[in-house]
């Protein structure tokens, strides 16, 4: 039995239910309880019943880091931390901090930086470009073009315009599009797993604009 006191303490209703059941049903029931305990205990991400859009996006930011490999030289030049930066007006608020606090990527602790100028973006690993920066997107992309920075934004047309990953909404579900050509040119290796779940993958560098 796995900490039965705790189990029963947490589920008084279930306990009452148990009493009402026959003995054979008890095993099935116990199985159910234990499974439930397992998932509740391990399901950190499921604590909020209805995560908000930016909560999801914050988590995605982190998850992108897990499926992408940065080139070795860039990794060494960017120091002992794994900076995740937000350029422009921050749409996350404290959510981003609480989501990424204490996490690590590529063996380095994740740090969050909020920057205002595109010049500062070269030191980041992941750069979220706020929609407020749409007007000088060209400059931002240019600044990060060869710096090994994963650019993410929810600006419409971002991936078409040279950004690497763009959040898109399918109803209330958050999805993303990948511009694989841009990422590859930046020497970032994206896992096929990531590509598999992307809403769309662009293989040409730019289309128009």
């Amino acid at each position, binding site marked *: 039995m796995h900490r039965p006191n705790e189990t029963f303490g947490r589920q008084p209703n279930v306990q009452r239910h148990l009493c009402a059941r026959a003995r054979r049903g008890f095993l099935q029931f116990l*199985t159910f309880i234990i499974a439930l305990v397992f998932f509740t205990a391990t*399901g950190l991400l499921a604590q909020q019943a209805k995560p908000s859009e930016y909560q999801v996006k914050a988590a995605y930011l982190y998850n992108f880091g897990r499926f992408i490999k940065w080139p070795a030289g860039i990794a060494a030049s960017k120091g002992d931390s794994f900076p995740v930066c937000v350029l422009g007006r921050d749409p996350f608020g404290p959510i981003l901090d609480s989501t990424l606090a204490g996490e690590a990527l590529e063996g380095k602790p994740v740090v969050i930086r909020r920057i205002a100028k595109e010049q500062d973006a070269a030191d980041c690993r992941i750069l979220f470009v706020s929609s407020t920066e749409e007007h000088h997107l060209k400059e931002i992309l240019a600044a990060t073009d060869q710096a090994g920075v994963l650019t993410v934004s929810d600006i419409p047309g971002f991936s078409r315009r040279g950004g690497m990953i763009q959040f898109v909404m399918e109803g209330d579900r958050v999805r993303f599009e990948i511009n694989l050509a841009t990422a590859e040119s930046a020497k970032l290796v994206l*896992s096929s797993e*990531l590509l598999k*779940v992307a809403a769309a993958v662009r293989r040409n560098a730019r289309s128009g604009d």
Partner: protein
Amino acid sequence: MFAQKHSISRKLTWMNMLVSGAALLLACAAFIAFDMITFRQAMLRNLSTQAQIIGANSVSALLFNDPQSAEKTLLALKAAPNILSAQVYLPDGRPFASYSRDRGPHNPVLPPIPPGQTETHRIENGQIALVRSIVLDGKPIGAVYIRSDLQELQSRFQRYAAIAAIVLSACLLAALLISSVFRRAVAEPIVDLSKIAKVVSQDKNYSVRATPVRSPAELAILIDAFNEMLAQIQESEGALRMARDELEQRVRERTAELETAKREVEEFSRSILLAKEEVERGSRFKDQFLSTMSHELRTPLNAVLGFSDLLADERYGPLNDRQQRYVAHIHTGGKHLLKLISDILDLSKIEAGRMELAREDVTVASAFAEVISALYPLAEKKSQALHQHAAPNLHVHADAMRFKQVLMNLAGNAIKFTPEGGRIELAACQVDDQVRVEVRDNGPGIPADQQQRIFEAFFRLTETGSATEGTGLGLAITSRLVELHGGKLEIESRPGAGTCFYFSLPLVAIIPDEAAPASIPMPRAPRAPRILVVEDNPATGQLIQSQLTSSGYETLRCDKPERAMEMAAEHQPDAITLDLIMQPVHGLEVLLQLKNDPRTSMIPVIVVTIVDQPGVGTVLGADEYLIKPVDKATLLAAVERCLRSRGGSAPARTILVVEDDVSTLEMIVELLRVYGYAVSTATDGAQARASVAQSLPELVILDLVLPKMSGFELLAEWRSNPRTADLSVFVLTSKDLTKEEEKYVHAHAESLFRKQNSWREPLIKQLERVVTSTSLENA
């Protein structure tokens, strides 16, 4: 037979099949079980790998919430036909993506994953359910659930089972074939052996032999041993048969011998039977002779004695001296002859073993007293002193009559052979559990060389000076009688120092209190007559008293003659006995006083004296005059006469005497007339019967041996008739009675008198008592 063969062969086959079948079955089962377990583990491993792949391919889908991607991954399971369904779950337990081949349950219950592990499985309902958690960076991000059927496992099992069945049947077939070889090698020799054994046991044919085999070794030994055993049995049976034949021959011979011997024995036993009959006839003849003798000899002798007695009484005129002497000789001779006959008959009876003893407890002292009182007159005649010493409670188990006869013979002999003034002593004492009885005298004694011969019949002492009267049979009879009682008569004597005869009889337990008086027959008189005995000599007084007392009288003793008058007046006795020679007053004076006093003048007086002057006594008023020595019978007769004369008249009715011997009849009639009785007679049974039928007599004196109708028949008839049931009957006979006859007589008659003994006085005495008492009763 066939069934037996069948049985052992079948058993062997069964054994073979059973053993090989069981071994194979076990082996197959083990192999299949092992394979199933291994295969199942492989299946599980497969399933786990698949779950792992699905998990790995579903990470991004989970992370980026892309169920379609996950479902795409799951669709790959289509290639595995055993996978029934698969699901990917979110960490909170919500289903994320699912795949199902059989449209089974969409929300299956997940088996729990133990902490610290990432995978668990459950097998149920022919399906395996496996759950594996999806972990990324040490954190579970979801779980994969795969459900697979066990179709493969089952089909594999079926395949294996079929193969096992084929192998098993092939093996059993092989075993069956092999066992037939065994059967030939083992079973058939055994069956063969059993056949032979059956032949031996049923037909007793020991010449057959079992077929020897070489293997197996035990069977070979068994068959060899069996054959050897048969050979031995055959041999010993032959020997046995020979011995039996020989034995039969011998038995036949012996039987023939026995047959012969049996015939001889039968012949012998027939001759013995004949001899026995002869002996029995002789014995019967002897008995008859004896009883006839006793009757035929005694009857005339009784007449001789009776009439000589009557003559001597001078009732029919005085006799001169010569006549008196001759009559006395006749009487003495007759008495001697009677005694001789009695003794011879007694001796013959003893020798023939026909003497029957009526044993009872006898008080030795009272037997002594009776003997002494009977012998007293004899002893007194020779001035001899008679003494007795016996403890009052000393008893022996003996025939009272015979015991007294023994004592009488011994004491009589002692008196006879002891000179005048001698002393004779009867003594009895207890020695251990025996009573030793002695008769001792101080006579001349018996020489040693004659001491043993004196017990022979007809032996007489040669040197005795006294007259040798007696039969010479006394001691022989005495000795035999003592032997009959279980003792032995012995003698102790030295010439000049007296003689002692002694014998020992078994002691009877001493009865502490004497109950004797009850057994003394009392007269029928309502009150016993009282007799005053006047006698100054204590011994004589005591003797007279005992004689009277033993006959039922009450006695008073007066040993001072001067007081006799007073006592008579005071006690008013029915009669007085009076001695004459007394101090200080002479008996005649006492007589005068008694007769002159009105108070006592009516009392009859019987003078008992040695003074032979009857005339004087009669003149002075004595009713009876008896000269000492007086025997009991005489005394009693005198007393009876006195009492009767005083009591009343003679009976009116007659006394019927039934006697076939005319002289005896006349004698009895004469005797009765002398005593004043009226008499009628009958000489045979028929007459007696008629006489009694006509008029009832006062009393009947009955002989037992009678013509026409015996005394026994008469008695029986009278007793059965109420009119004569109370008739007094005295039996007077010379017949030697058997025990039964004697018993019968005692039961049906008043008294029994034997002619061989002196019967006259007892008869008269008894007669007087009976007649007196009846007349008193009638009055």
